[in-house]
Each structure stands twice: as structure tokens, then as C-alpha cells.
């Protein structure tokens, strides 16, 4: 049957068809929908883990226990999971294990655009790269077969344009699911130095066998076209190049690591010039140059950002598409993403801005608070970094603790903030940490986490008690505050900054987008508005100033778009002239 699936949906489908029975992940754009979809199929135990390292370790255990396993994460997630990953490459597997990592060239939703193809090379683990949804489905199955055949974890690398593009897929039947019986093999799975040395030899032998395997692999395809130009490519770049050079010869690498010199040399001998079309780093290019083959690649194409058909064409001096003579677009007002109406993060970050604090930030919806008009964030490196960064600033300048706070979301705190807070307590810090607890992993689309009380498969479960967790680390000053009660919240922050010991403020307010709590919009009393714009400082999309008209001779006064106002009443706390008065708080669910 033919259906249209996104790349991520197709990966889930492929895993189901391949008989995967255990799947783990931590959410992260563009990978999140893989587990969300797989969880809808029968017979697959799917779960969100607190972070990617745990996800991979659970997956490794499930493989050891004999199941076919899929683990999914975004590119930077593999940094977190790199420790188990590198050694899993030595131990190998029992049940097939596929690690899907979704790269984000162009950084649509990421803090960097690292090229995870390096990980295949570093771990000497085979990598497959689908170019569209049907390939994604087929490659999941192939990856699991390779995993079992060569006793190795296998990487399936997608990019945003593969994960989040839709195309036609042929779905096949449901598989049979068999678990391999467990038997102890300590020399293979206990990575003591003595055993690991032996395993590394095995990894090298495996790498050589995989090179032979790649020479004739059916997913490494030569398409014979003109002998003037040969294009070597992988993943979605293949489609861009095909669009730009339909007449060229192609070598499309589905199994993109390890490379087979025999195959590449064969292709190279058939064409006059070779154009390497790959996003980000010149990895294929360097490997192929090292084979003594002359190619063009990053001398013509950018090493940053994603490719597009026109970029691939222009790199080879070809202009194909003629657009309209559009007026320049650079000067148009941007439309950055922003906090939703009713978001608790807005109150918290507004307060930190007003107090003129140094804010070490973290990753989540609240990172949007770094943008105007709030501009209330000084740093953001990776998930969990806020706490350690604040503590480090305090070490550099012993008075910094009085004017520095770390902000971190609930999901991010559980992902990798706990250990840093432990460090603050252990090493006698005085850091103030604000956990922005909206009860969900909002940024990636509202996934559950260990403190929400619900699993990925919607079963009720124990919910981590954040207050108790933080206390158990040795933080005695722990308080829960509502970030939309500005005066009280501000007071709380000032108090905690004034005490020379670690403190944690849990800023608790449910995600507006998830809970859809809706109060009456504030009452606007136009006559009272003097147009001071104080309320606009919170960057709420429901608020604007409108021309009241020359007749009234008043200039600009505040207006509320009632269609999008959530009635959170934050703005009413900022108006000193009585122009915005609290609406009725019924707390109804929309």
C-alpha cells in the first residue's frame, strides 16, 4: 500500500516492519516524531529517557537481552550518548541495534550544526543515509540486518530535510518478532582493558569486511549518465544535485561509511570530472581525495548551512531558475518565534531583566527570552550548562553570586542539570538556580519526562518530586513560586540572591500551549492609557498600540487582541495608570 509519510514516520514504520521490540529516545528536533510514531504501533516498548546517554544504555541492554532495538536522538544528543556509543562499537550487539541521529544543517532548531558523519568514522561504525522517506523505511531494515550480520551498532543519519519532508512510501506487512535467548559472553561485553584490546582488533577486522561489503552494496548506486560530469553524493543532497544536473552520472552512496575505494575508483574512471555534493564538512571529499582521485567539492560549495538545488547548481556555474524581480527582502521586519500568550517563562525572564541580573541560560522555549524585547540571557551553550556556568562565573568573581542566576527548564534539569547542582553544593557554591517548571518538554512539542507522571505510551507513572530531589542534593533553600505574580517572584529572586548559599526557585506555571488555561482578557480603559509602552516590554503578541485617531488627539493607546490573549494578567501588573485592569480569572479550559 502507498501512503505519504514524513522521514521520521517512515523510520518508525521501518522499525516496526523490521521487528524492533524496544525503542528509546530523548526528544530533540528534528528527531522527535520517530518515537512518537513508533509508540503508536503494537508490540514495541517505546520510552522517553531522561537523556540520550540513558536512552542508548537502555537500548544496549535490550540488544544484549536479544531484542531488535532502535534509539533516536538529534545530532547533539549523540554528544551526550557518545560515551556508551564509542564502546558499544567494541562490544557489538546481540539483537540488531540502530541509532538514528538527526542532523540539523542550517540550524532550524539547534545550537550548532555539527556533522555527525564524523561519529561513524570515530567509532568505525557503518552509516546509512536515506534521501527520502521510502529510503528511510528500507534503510532501517537494512541497518538492522547489517547490525546483526557484522555484530555492530549501525548509524542511520538523517537531516532536517529528510526527517521533516514527506514523500510516498510503500508500507509492507507486519513482521514476526523473535527475541534471541540470552547467554553470558563476558569477554565480549565486559570492557576491561584486556578484553577491550581484543575487541578493538575485531573492530578493525569488521571495518575491512564492511569495506568489501560496501563495494557491491545495492544501496550504493551508480546511475550512468553523461561522462562529462560525475556527481558523488549521499542523503538529500542527491535530490538537489539530480534537480540541477539531470544529465550527469551519479554515484549515490546509501551506505556512506565505510567507503569502498574499488567502487569509487570504478566510478571515477567512467567520468571526466567529479563534483562532490555533500552538506557541511568535506568528509566524503577528503576520503576520496585520499584515494588519489581528483574531485571538486568544498572549493565550490559552502561548508556551512544546508544545501539547496540552486546552491548546488550555482556551485558549478549553472543558473537554471528565473525568479520574479522581487523587491529586496532584507529590510522587511523579521518574524522571530516568541513566547506564547500566557507563558510563565515571560514573567520569569522579565523579572530577571528588570533586576539587571546576569543570566546563564539553557536550552528550551525559555531561550527565546534572549531575543528582544526581553534580552534577558547572557549565555546558552548546551543542555544543562546553565548551572555550571553560573557557578563558574562565581568562581571567577567571588561577588558574582549576588547578581547571577541560572535558568533551566524542568526537562533540561532532569536531562543534565542535576549533576551540576550537585557540584554547586559539593564545592561550596552560592549559586541561585531557577528551574522553569512548565510541567512538560515544551520546545520539542510537549513530551512527557520523569516528573510529569506519564510515560510515552500514556501510562501513569511515578512523578519525580523536584523539591525533594533538589533538597536531597543538599540545597536547603528551595521554594516554589508563580512566575506570573511579578511582585512576589521578584521578591523571591532578591531574597535568594542575598543569601550566601545555594538556592533553587522552582518557577512553576503550566505551559500555556499544553494546558490551554484561559482567563478573561484584561479590561482596557483607553482613557487611562498615556502610551508609555511599559506593557510592551514583555513582548506579548496580544498587545499592541493603536492609533486612537486625531479626533481624540491622543496618539497611541494600548489594544488587546482578544483572539490570542490568554488572560494571564501579566500586563495588568505593569500598568501604573489603570489602563489595563485584570480580567476575570475563571481558569477555564479552552
Amino acid at each position, binding site marked *: 500500500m502507498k501512503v505519504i509519510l514524513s522521514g521520521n514516520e517512515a523510520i518508525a514504520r521501518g522499525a516496526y516492519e523490521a521487528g524492533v521490540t524496544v525503542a528509546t529516545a530523548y526528544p530533540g528536533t528534528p528527531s522527535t516524531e520517530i518515537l512518537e510514531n513508533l509508540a503508536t504501533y503494537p508490540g514495541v516498548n517505546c520510552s522517553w529517557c531522561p537523556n540520550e546517554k540513558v536512552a542508548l544504555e537502555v537500548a544496549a541492554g535490550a540488544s544484549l537481552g536479544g531484542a531488535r532495538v532502535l534509539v533516536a536522538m538529534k545530532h547533539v544528543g549523540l554528544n551526550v550518548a557518545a560515551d556508551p556509543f564509542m564502546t558499544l562499537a567494541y562490544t557489538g550487539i546481540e539483537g540488531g541495534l540502530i541509532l538514528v541521529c538527526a542532523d540539523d544543517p542550517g540550524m532550524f*532548531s539547534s545550537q550548532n550544526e555539527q556533522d555527525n558523519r564524523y561519529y561513524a568514522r570515530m567509532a568505525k561504525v557503518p552509516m546509512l543515509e536515506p534521501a527520502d522517506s521510502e529510503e528511510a523505511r528500507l534503510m532501517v531494515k537494512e541497518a538492522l540486518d547489517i547490525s546483526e550480520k557484522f555484530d555492530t551498532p549501525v548509524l542511520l543519519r538523517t537531516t532536517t530535510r529528510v526527517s521533516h519532508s*514527506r514523500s*510516498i512510501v510503500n508500507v509492507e506487512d507486519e513482521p514476526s518478532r523473535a527475541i534471541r535467548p540470552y547467554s553470558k559472553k563476558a569477554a565480549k561485553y565486559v570492557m576491561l582493558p584486556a578484553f577491550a584490546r581484543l575487541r578493538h582488533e575485531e573492530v578493525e577486522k569488521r571495518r575491512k569486511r564492511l569495506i568489501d561489503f560496501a563495494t557491491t552494496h545495492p544501496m550504493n548506486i551508480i546511475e550512468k549518465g553523461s561522462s562529462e560530469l560525475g556527481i558523488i553524493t549521499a542523503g538529500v543532497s542527491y535530490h538537489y544535485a*539530480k534537480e*540541477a544536473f539531470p544529465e550527469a552520472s551519479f554515484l549515490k552512496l546509501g551506505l556512506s561509511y565505510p567507503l569502498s575505494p574499488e567502487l569509487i575508483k570504478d566510478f571515477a574512471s567512467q567520468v571526466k570530472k567529479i563534483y562532490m555534493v555533500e552538506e557541511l564538512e568535506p568528509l566524503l571529499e577528503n576520503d576520496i581525495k585520499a584515494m588519489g582521485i581528483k574531485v571538486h567539492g568544498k572549493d565550490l560549495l559552502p561548508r556551512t548551512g544546508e544545501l539547496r538545488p540552486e546552491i548546488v547548481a550555482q556551485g558549478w556555474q549553472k543558473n537554471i531558475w528565473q*525568479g520574479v524581480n*522581487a523587491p529586496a527582502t532584507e529590510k522587511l521586519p523579521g518574524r522571530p518565534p*516568541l513566547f506564547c500568550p500566557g507563558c510563565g517563562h515571560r514573567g520569569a525572564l522579565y523579572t530577571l531583566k528588570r533586576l539587571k541580573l546576569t543570566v546563564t541560560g539553557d536550552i528550551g522555549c525559555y531561550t527565546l527570552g534572549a531575543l528582544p524585547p526581553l534580552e534577558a540571557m547572557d549565555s546558552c551553550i548546551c543542555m544543562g550548562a546553565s548551572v555550571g556556568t553560573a557557578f563558574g562565573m562565581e568562581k571567577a568573581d567571588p561577588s558574582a553570586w549576588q547578581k547571577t542566576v541560572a535558568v533551566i527548564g524542568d526537562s533540561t534539569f532532569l536531562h543534565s542539570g542535576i549533576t551540576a547542582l550537585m557540584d554547586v553544593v559539593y564545592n561550596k557554591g552560592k549559586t541561585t538556580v531557577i528551574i522553569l517548571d512548565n510541567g512538560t518538554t515544551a520546545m520539542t512539542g510537549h513530551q512527557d519526562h520523569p516528573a510529569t507522571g506519564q510515560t510515552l505510551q500514556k501510562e501513569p507513572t511515578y512523578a519525580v518530586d523536584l523539591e525533594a530531589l533538589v533538597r536531597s542534593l543538599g540545597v536547603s533553600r528551595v521554594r516554589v513560586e508563580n512566575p506570573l505574580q511579578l511582585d512576589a517572584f521578584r521578591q523571591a529572586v532578591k531574597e535568594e540572591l542575598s543569601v550566601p548559599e545555594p538556592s533553587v526557585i522552582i518557577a512553576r506555571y503550566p505551559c500555556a500551549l499544553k494546558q490551554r488555561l484561559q482567563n478573561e482578557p484584561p479590561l482596557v480603559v483607553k482613557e487611562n492609557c498615556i502610551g508609555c509602552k511599559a506593557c510592551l516590554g514583555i513582548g506579548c503578541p496580544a498587545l499592541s498600540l493603536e492609533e486612537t485617531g486625531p479626533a481624540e488627539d491622543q496618539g497611541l493607546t494600548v489594544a488587546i487582541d482578544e483572539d490570542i490573549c490568554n488572560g494571564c494578567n501579566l500586563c495588568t501588573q505593569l500598568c501604573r495608570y489603570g489602563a489595563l485592569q485584570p480580567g476575570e480569572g475563571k481558569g477555564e479550559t479552552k
Partner: protein
Amino acid sequence: MNKIDILITGVGGQGTILAGKILGQLALNANLDVKMAETHGMAQRGGSVITHVRLGEKVYSPLIPLGAADFLLSFEQLETMRWLPYLRRGGTIIYHTRSLAPLPVLCKQMSYPAHIPEQLDALEVQVIPVTGENTPVEKNPRVLNITLLGVLSKHLPFKQEQWLEALENTVPPKFLDLNKEAFLAGQSL
């Protein structure tokens, strides 16, 4: 059939992805190839979003090349201007005339660009403004995406039954009647 490239633009939450899915289903039902590329994640929080839709006998890239789109289907004026460079010469713009102020405009740091309709009319392309008056959009802005598909349907080689079937295959049953009404309203504009 020749390949048709449609760029759908709007603001996060306006339903560009659903509009794309309906077009995709339409192509699938007609035994055509189709590819779509969407905006997910961070940008969805009220940001500028686009969905690329490409249908034809065989489609390679999920991204429409810059300057190749046959149609720009836009749910908001400013976004029409922003994504205009994607339109090919002689292409068609179908856009909703309502403007939604982005943050720099709400905060009075920048002003909303003036005279967008005039600027569009000055281009050598077909321009179809849609006000939404006398359509279900007046009461319910959420059906804007479907209404604009109704307008687009008059320019594509598919029959009304095919469109309605694609809607049935894609839209949740409880919203189907509302969406059919919106589609037909767009088609009769």
C-alpha cells in the same frame, strides 16, 4: 502532467502543514509523485513558516529551487513579500490580505511595510488577493488554509471530487464538514 511547485507561507499556527498534507494526498490519489518540506520545532512558535509542495510524474528535491515556484499560496501579507523570491517569472500569487504584526512591529521598533498589494500588482505575475469576506474565515480564522486551497483549486488540473476526497482522507472527521464548507467557499470566489 507538468510538475507543479507550490510554496505555502504563513505564521506558525496557521496550518501550512495541513494544507500541504491535503495537496500531497490529492497527488497520491491521482497516482502522481509528491514531496513536501515543512517547518517544525522552534520556528513554529508564532514565527515565519513555509511548506514546500511539489507534485508531478517524478519529483526529486523536496525543496523548491529559488525562483521556481509556480504558486505562492500565502496566509499573510508580509510573509508574501518575504518569500516572493521563490516565485518564478509568470507565476501566480494567491494571498490573504489580512496582516498579522510581527513582534518588531507590535513593539513599534519597525513599521509594517506599506502598500504591499500595490507592490505585488506591479510584478509581472498573476495576483489573486483574498479578503476572506463572505467566507467561513470571517467567523473562524482557522479555516483560512482550506479556503485558500479552494481558491488554488481553480488553477490546478484536478476535479472537485478529487479535492473533496483528499480532504476526507486528511482532515479529522469532526472538522470535515466545516472544512468542506470552507473549501467550497474558496472555490466559488
